[in-house]
């Protein structure tokens, strides 16, 4: 391999892929907000945004412009340096995670693989990097030097740290079946088994998805930003573009949780019943599109749950995390390994 090939393989191709993914994600997040407002409006028998463009189709662009133009207020007594970088600390991990999530099979995209990179600790990478995002929230809440953000940050930290544990144990169930941490290998394994891991590990999926909702601070687990008690939670003092960074990070995390749920439990880029030849006509839809369809389904469930369920009380939230999800996930790990050892 000469120098040019190395440059193209290790710099140009990944950079192009990163640019495409970041572009699609940013656009997707913008329109996810519109989807959310429309669906919530339908659930509440309203119309939602209707004014900007046809049925509000240009609303996200108007919102984005508004965020950029608005004044950036930094409270007088805030720690300026920390206040400034905290939203970025929250946002960057949310995007970095997509480096290892596979959107297509390894032989797609002219043999370069439908992902930025495939590393042998893929799943650990996702869990580790997304755990860094908490720091942005806790630092933002502290740096505001105001009581509601501080309370929101404390709640949020307690919540995210406790649900991370149950989430980790839920993921171990998949690991045991897949025998690999590489996300590409996990999807390939589902193809060779001819079975989505959801049918092998349903308990693990339910715990994972519920914990995912708690991790992203979404209803019914949105205690960190409970408007009725905390004004706005950790981002009360944030305005303009800095606020929008937190906002984008939250939606990016929703997409991460959905993508990971699809990759781990619903066959990633695979079509339904990947080994049934009679359904080969489903291959007309390319793998990345299958992936997108599945992710959109999960995002819809996120919004649907938000429109349906009331908020938990904080002690209920902690109880359900430590006393229900964690023991169930641990039991699932024990049962799975016992079954794997004795029957396979």
């Amino acid at each position, binding site marked *: 391999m000469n120098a040019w090939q190395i440059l193209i393989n290790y710099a140009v191709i990944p950079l192009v892929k990163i640019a495409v993914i970041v572009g699609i994600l940013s656009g997707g997040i913008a329109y996810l907000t519109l989807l959310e407002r429309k669906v919530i409006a339908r659930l509440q028998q309203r119309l939602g945004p209707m004014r900007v463009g046809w049925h509000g189709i240009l609303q996200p662009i108007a919102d984005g412009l508004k965020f950029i133009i608005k004044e950036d207020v930094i409270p007088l007594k805030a*720690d300026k340096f920390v206040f400034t970088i905290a939203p970025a600390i929250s946002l960057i991990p949310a995007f970095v995670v997509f480096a290892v999530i596979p959107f297509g099979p390894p032989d797609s995209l002219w043999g370069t693989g439908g992902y930025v990179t495939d590393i042998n600790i893929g799943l650990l990478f996702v869990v580790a990097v997304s755990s860094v995002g908490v720091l942005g929230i*806790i630092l933002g809440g*502290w740096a505001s030097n105001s009581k509601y953000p501080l309370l929101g940050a404390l709640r949020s930290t307690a919540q995210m740290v406790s649900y991370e544990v149950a989430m980790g144990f839920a993921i171990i169930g998949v690991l045991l079946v897949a025998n690999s941490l590489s996300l590409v290998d996990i999807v390939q394994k589902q193809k060779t088994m001819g079975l989505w891991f959801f049918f092998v590990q349903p308990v693990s999926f339910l715990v994972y998805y519920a914990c995912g909702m708690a991790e992203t601070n979404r209803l019914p687990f949105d205690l960190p930003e409970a408007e009725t008690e905390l004004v706005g939670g950790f981002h009360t003092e944030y305005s303009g573009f800095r606020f929008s960074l937190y906002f984008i990070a939250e939606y990016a995390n929703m997409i991460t949780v959905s993508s990971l749920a699809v990759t781990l439990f619903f066959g990633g880029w695979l079509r339904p019943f990947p080994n049934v030849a009679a359904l080969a006509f489903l291959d007309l839809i390319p793998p990345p599109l299958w992936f997108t369809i599945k992710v959109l389904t999960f995002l819809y469930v996120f919004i649907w749950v938000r429109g349906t369920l009331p908020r938990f009380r904080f002690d209920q939230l902690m109880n359900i995390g430590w006393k229900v999800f964690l023991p169930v996930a641990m039991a699932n790990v024990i049962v799975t390994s016992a079954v794997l050892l004795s029957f396979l």
Partner: protein
Amino acid sequence: MTSAVADQIVFYTLAALIVGMSLMVILARNAVRSALYLISALIGFAALYVRLKAEFIAGVQILVYVGGIMVLFLFVIMLVSVRRMEHQAKWSHQWKVALVAALVLAAELAYPIVKGRSLFAVKQTPEAVLTKTQNIQTVGEVLYSTYLLPFEIASVLLLVAIIGAVVLAKKRI
């Protein structure tokens, strides 16, 4: 040859970064800033582990230290008034004693490193073992065979610490 040079450049850049950040941890007046510098240093360590082809350790380093322990650190620091600390003197009058103690400690640390280079030479793991997918399996196998006893002792120690913390923190069990 060139890759060896690049390797050295990566190592010394990371090492300089870690040393610099570690210094800032103790030099910063604001405890939250100190925590931020410590986080940067810990991420630098994770990068060093990646360079050593220990990706699993690198991932665990980020997950446990940055995502777990540092969050708890910040949790505690947030509840203490940081503003008061900012007005305290940075240098105490005991710096001469501290300098001597630090030099003695440095000598103490240097001795086993220099001596141990030949005495406890770590067996080089063959490249083939370190290739893709083998990394985590290798760590797991070694933990449950060669290093079983130290591993179990460490886990019992942690368990004792957890139970101790619960007993100390709860008034009524």
